[in-house]
């Protein structure tokens, strides 16, 4: 290397060149495969695809573990329809009315409801800024999102009572806007009455804007005007100071809306009659790698491990033969239960049967609304009218008509018992008892059968935990981690 100075110069120039060319530019990297959310206050949904994506993420709510699992567990397992089943301590807590604030089911469902509402907000808040949608398309999307939001808040307020109402969409939080977003980030709970006002408003929006039902079964898989009316009827029946006239009005709209009870009760659940004439709004499972993978069946039915929601003796004894065939399935398993000690003919819920993720289930169906109207009639003095509707549901399963009842309370008991049999394992019981104010009266009387070898008789023994149930247990605690990190929240009494 004779040309040492030359070589050194070249080397230095090369090195320097690399530096000068690169430095500042290198520091501006942009996401390659990650998707970016726009800053706060920017129009988030821009294209039709964006809007459809947002709509799909709302539909995906029904694939979430609340709707696939917890909804049925609280509604049935937490009531006298079913025993806990399985072997998970947190679920025993729910079954035995001794939930505490660190229960993970409580925490995950609180989180899910906040998330459900947020998904709906995204669409509702930004859909107007998507230029390539027609007014009809836009309205239908708003109507559907509104009903999903109403349903989410309706479930949440039934579970927790007071619940936050958040309508904003937060995409970008930083030190500049943190304080202004604070009340949405750390919301206080709003009184039940405010929550119901928001739910009613969303139902009204859905009634105005959601699509009409068509003859196609698929139209039942999304929120429709009829679904909105049915939900609104239930909302008016459930809210503090129910508005029974409104309940009757909206029930009638549904009952006269082109629906009919299926003549064969089992067709409701045999997976061969999806989107049937009785269905008002149903969840459409489409298989394992689809938008809604309906894995719920595998939680409640099967032999491979001990399943949740073991049917109760009370239900087993109450059911008429037709509905029992469609509601409970007995088959040999390798496990037993303190309440069903024989595992040769162990009972399982039988209203979900497809294990491949394609199971459909009902959010609302006509029998539910007919019995809801019966409840409204009973509450408003038309006991005979109420019983006529109950008998309409009973006649479908060839049960004799119930006779006249003497009092509103007796009528409510008859209606509740009919709902118990008609809607078992459809996630209703806990909420039905709460709505009618009968939770403690009925759930404190749960028994199970024990065989007495001396008398060779089955004795009805009270469940060991029924003494746990107090009015405080009718609302869940705020999850402890949420409570601890949000100074605006106050725990429900008893937790």
């Amino acid at each position, binding site marked *: 290397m004779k040309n*040492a100075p030359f070589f050194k110069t070249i080397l230095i120039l090369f090195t320097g060149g690399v530096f000068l060319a690169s430095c500042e530019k290198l520091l501006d*990297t942009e996401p390659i*495969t990650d998707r970016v959310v726009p800053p706060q206050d920017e129009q988030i949904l821009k294209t039709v695809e964006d809007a459809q994506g947002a709509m799909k993420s709302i539909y995906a709510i029904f694939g979430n573990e609340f709707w696939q699992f917890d909804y049925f567990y609280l509604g049935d397992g937490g009531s006298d329809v079913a025993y806990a089943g399985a072997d998970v301590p947190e679920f025993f807590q729910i079954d035995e009315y001794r939930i505490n*604030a660190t229960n993970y089911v409580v925490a995950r469902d609180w989180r899910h409801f906040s998330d459900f509402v947020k998904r709906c907000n995204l669409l509702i808040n930004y859909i107007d800024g998507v230029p390539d949608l027609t007014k009809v398309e836009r309205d239908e999307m708003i109507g559907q999102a509104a009903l999903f939001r109403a349903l989410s808040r309706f479930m949440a307020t039934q579970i927790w009572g007071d619940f936050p109402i958040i309508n904003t969409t937060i995409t970008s939080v930083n030190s500049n806007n943190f304080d202004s977003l604070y009340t949405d980030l750390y919301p206080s709970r709003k009184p039940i009455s405010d929550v119901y006002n928001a739910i009613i408003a969303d139902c009204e929006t859905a009634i105005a804007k959601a699509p009409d039902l068509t003859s196609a079964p698929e139209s039942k898989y999304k929120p429709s005007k009829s679904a909105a009316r049915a939900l609104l009827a239930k909302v008016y029946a459930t809210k503090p100071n129910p508005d029974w006239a409104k309940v009757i009005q909206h029930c009638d709209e549904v009952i006269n809306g082109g629906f009919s009870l299926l003549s064969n009760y089992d067709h409701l659940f045999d997976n061969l009659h999806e989107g049937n004439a009785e269905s008002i709004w149903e969840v459409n499972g489409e298989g*394992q790698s689809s938008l809604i993978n309906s894995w719920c069946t595998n939680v409640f039915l099967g032999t491979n491990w001990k399943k949740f929601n073991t049917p109760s003796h009370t239900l087993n004894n109450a059911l008429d033969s037709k509905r029992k065939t469609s509601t409970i399935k007995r088959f040999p398993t390798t496990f*037993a239960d303190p309440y069903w000690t024989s*595992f040769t003919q162990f009972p399982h819920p039988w209203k979900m049967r497809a294990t491949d993720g394609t199971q459909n289930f009902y959010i609302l169906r006509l029998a539910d609304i007919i019995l809801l109207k019966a409840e409204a009639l009973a509450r408003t003095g038309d006991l005979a009218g109420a019983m006529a509707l109950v008998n309409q549901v009973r006649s479908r399963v060839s049960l004799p008509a119930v006779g006249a009842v003497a009092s509103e309370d007796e009528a409510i008991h008859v209606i509740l018992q009919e709902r118990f049999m008609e809607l078992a394992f459809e996630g209703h019981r806990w909420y039905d008892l709460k709505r009618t104010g009968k939770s403690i009266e009925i759930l404190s009387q749960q028994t199970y059968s024990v065989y007495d070898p001396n008398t060779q008789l089955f004795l009805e023994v009270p469940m060991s935990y029924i003494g746990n149930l107090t009015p405080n247990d009718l609302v869940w605690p705020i999850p402890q981690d949420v409570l601890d990190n949000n100074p605006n929240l106050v725990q429900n009494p008893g937790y």
Partner: protein
Amino acid sequence: MGLKYYFQILFFFIVNVASAQSITVNGNVVDSKNKQPLPGVAIFAKNTQDGVVTDLDGNYSIAINPNDTLVFSFLGFVSQEVVITQSQTLNISLSEGASSLEEVVVVGYGTQKKALVTNAIASVGAASFDDRPITSVGQALQGNAAGVTVVQSSGKPGGALDIRIRGLNSIVSGVNPLFVIDGVQTYSAEGVNTDDIVDIQILKDATATAIYGINGSAGVVLITTKRGKADKHVLGFSSYIGTSEIVKNIEVLNLDQYKTLMGELSSSYVEQANAPKYAGINTNWSDEVFRTGQDENYELSYSGGAKKLRVFTSLGYQNTKGIVRPSRFARYSGRLNLDYDVNSWLKVYANVNLIKTELANTSDNNSANQGGVILSALTTQQYLPIYADDLVGGAEANGQLPGQFASNPIASLENPVSFASRQEDTHVNRILGNLGFEVRLMKNLVWNQSTTIDRSSSEYEFFVDSYRSNYGRNNDNPDIATRGIGRQYLTKNLNLNFENTLEYLTRTNDHELKVLLGSGIQHFGFNQDQLEGIGFGLDLRTLDLGQMMDTTHARRIEREKNTVSYFTRVTYNFMDKYVINGVFRASGSSQLAKGHKWGYFPGISAAWLVSNEPFFGNNELISLLKLRAGWGRTGNISGIPEYASYGLAAFNFANPDALEQINYTNEDLTWETTTDINIGADLTMFDYRVKFTADIFKRNTNDLLFRLKIEGKDYLYNAGEVENKGIEFSLNTHNIRSQNLNWNTNFNISFLKNKVIEFGKNRYESYGYQGVNLIEGGQPLGNFFGYAVEQINPSNGNIEYRDIDGGGFLNAADRTIIGNAMPDFTFGFTNSLSYKGISLDVLITGSQGNDIFNASRIDLEGMQDPKNQSVAVLQRWQKEGDITNIPRANDPNAVLASDRFIEDGSYARLKSVTLSYNFQKMFWGLSSMKIYATGQNLATLTNYSGFDPEVGSNNESTGVARGIDYGTYPQVRTFIFGLKIQF
């Protein structure tokens, strides 16, 4: 911002194209007494701080200027000085006696005379780990350096280690140190063959690590590998083989005891156990799961070269078969280190390290319900057989098929053999390389350009076959296309670093000034292809994606980040009495938003060599007394993801089009900044036979990164402060020094206190099992939070907890602080005794004052379900009046996280004992031969009731979840026999 342009300009002005002549000297250094090679001898040209260190075989090679004086110095030996006029081979023999101050150590971007070091640096030489059956750098450090805590959180071969230097200074960021492997800056030393390592320096305080800027906050580990020496040809071969076994097991109930317990839970469980199909079956699951492990290791190396071109190359193979099927770790490694002196002013060096590792994982630290093999081995019911074939009547009669694992009647449970049959393999190919030029621009000015690459590609494969297990059969789903689960993740990581430094040295009689200027560009690329699917042939036992029927998930992720840095160091030395060292680094990072990209990290430190003062005189007792002090600032950006300044939407598995937000934007994000004060003293006494170092430090980390969950989505922000303060001592003594008998001891101990001074926006955050690791302001990290047991009520056997909030009933507000996972101190104690050719090396490590949350006991003593339990439950409450600390069976509150699962995790462990023999007389042309036997984890003194007190945390990636044992794969006891020969 102006600062970096200043540096850029400065860089180009210092272009002085002058040249100087350079010559190379190489050779070998031996002990004059026994002619054994001396590793670690410092060799440098007098009046410079540039130098080299002899390798394990005493070889060296150094380039100097003609007529320089070469100095050879080694602790405990008399230094020698030789004037060099031309390139030559120079073999030196040093004799023991009065020593010098001239040892050099490797520091960031260069070397420094050890005596003049102003920072807190710990050194670990190869001699302290090269006879042990270890697989990673972390294990080499364990117990050997003050202030460095290494927790091997699982005994799994190839398992990750937690290396913590001076405590925990972050909550969500990575707290592993930066590794610099022959100049390659990386966060992982995985796969580096410890046989190739000469020594390891650990930079502990910010005055030393600030030169690494945003990456220096958790400390820096500098790893130097072996290099070739001219005309000194050494062909080496080493090997060991050995076996390992479980140290301790946990006793579980036998079948009779089990059935009695089940009778107290539910008669149906007894009925289940007594089912005819299980008649006569009694499976000892521990016997089915644990086995004898095997260790083997081979290394072949060559070191040597000609005067101008020197080479070190090695090939290694290591294979460790774990004690729990199917765990295994194998490593193939190849290394080539080249040095070429092109001419008097240009040197080229290149290192290439190729690594291939194969890891077969056993799922541990997890409940049996989630596939944790260890807990499953303890809790699976003994009445179950492994295979359905062994059920009474055979498989078919019981609704199964031959060769299938017998179904477990409990929800989601399989037997441990079934869990272990899952394939979970990670194969990694990694290349670590470095190409550098050293250009002497002027006599005193050296320009170093280095380009490093660290590229790894890994293939992760998970497979559950479609036939044998319930899980694999998708719960006997009639649709065959849903049976079998396969997953393949192909990951590529690229780390490129392009650095330039200029080093200028000037010296007059009393003053010495050394200036380093540097710049660097670092690029990190990451991409991953994820593929998951279901539906596989019944006979398939290892993943074959070609047979997959249905893809459930396919995704590609690609990310990159860059940093640009400018750095400088100025060292001024006055008469070898006062040394001042200033460092500064400016770093810009692509992860951060505009306007927040650049950070500046200064450090300043000074040393006063009291023993060089005239007033100190010629002290007989004290050879060296040095006082050190320093202040510095470093950053940690590892917790900030690539695109933190953007809000990102999540990928929806089911529906790629659906928009689901995962994190929020925070444009104000910045790195965590640690401000560090260190004061230390070095004292060498009794003719260099006693060497004592003490350091006291305080590190305050501000702008901690926090992850706020807003509706389940992440919002990262900076807030708060955490403080670590501690004292470290290390004492090296040469207790006996004679011709035949030598005895050295090395003791180090570190005390650490940690406190969260200010917390973020949340009241607290919790991590780990049941959120038992709780972090809040005013408290140390590592706290355990849970219920405090009041009593086991003698009348009903219920567990009762203290009513902390006075609410009158049990609620979440009754939880309190029940322990802490942080040790008060950790220590390591090494003894080396040699008599003629026989040596005995003993390493003892320990930890004192730390609690362990033994979550395994929740599964083993909870008595909630038909899982088998440990013999501890024989003490359970059974009838009215029983006084005990184990509640009744089936008490739902018994499984709450409480202080009854807190145990003292203190331990002292005989980590390793090596007995070796160096053959004194050679044959077959060998130049050296050594045989040795090593036992690892021979004995552990502890009160901890679990498998082993050295535990990490269950399934948490952050450093703050710790001290939780939830079915941890236990540490193993290993015995190996090894041989090392050289030609």
